[in-house]
């Protein structure tokens, strides 16, 4: 397994952990309708859980500088695919409720952070998957 594939698997694992931690916290906040100090405490706990994962993901960027030109090309292509997936995801998330619920209806506010976290997950998932698929296809062709 190349360094690029290892980075993709690592990225996928980290973002999944991040989502597993954050989504229940958002649901808890929404269900409890917490306000004031209770709300701040829950946000603090969530930040404490998510920030180490976010830090590791950011540190990974220094690891990626060691990629060679082919790996950088695969990474750039994967980034384009992830950007495309993100746009499609956001377009679906924003327009489907509009057409399903109608223009005069309302949606709950807690969907907003959920959309944010799901957008990040979608982009990272698409990025990692695109890298893994490209590497697998190349390996198959090379055999």
């Amino acid at each position, binding site marked *: 397994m*190349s*360094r*690029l594939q290892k980075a993709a698997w690592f990225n996928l694992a980290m973002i999944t952990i991040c989502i597993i931690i954050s989504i229940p916290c958002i649901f808890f906040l929404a269900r409890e309708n917490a306000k004031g100090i209770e709300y701040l405490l829950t946000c603090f706990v969530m930040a404490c859980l998510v920030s180490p994962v976010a830090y590791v993901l950011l540190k990974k960027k220094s690891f990626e500088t060691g990629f*060679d*030109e*082919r*790996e950088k*090309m695969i990474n750039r292509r994967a980034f384009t695919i992830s950007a495309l997936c993100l746009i499609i995801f956001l377009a679906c998330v924003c327009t489907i409720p509009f057409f399903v619920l109608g223009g005069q209806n309302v949606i709950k506010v807690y969907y907003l952070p959920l959309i944010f976290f799901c957008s990040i997950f979608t982009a990272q998932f698409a990025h990692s998957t695109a890298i893994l698929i490209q*590497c697998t296809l*190349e*390996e198959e*062709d*090379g055999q």
Partner: protein
Amino acid sequence: MGSNRLSNNLRRLRFENGQMTQQQLADKVSVTRQTIIAIEAGKYAPSLPLAFKLAHTFGVSIEDVFQYENEQS
């Protein structure tokens, strides 16, 4: 319409230079073994600096390593 293809003699050059492994060549030109595999298989066209590095490693000109084929159909 014509199709362009970059063929190469990397595999032959490796064996002519003391049965050099893909990993050894990759280390010499500072890329991964997967990149050498992709170049040898014609799946990846290297950049000009990398192509020159590969040619210099074997002590030959770039034309001796890479050939540009333009197939007219």
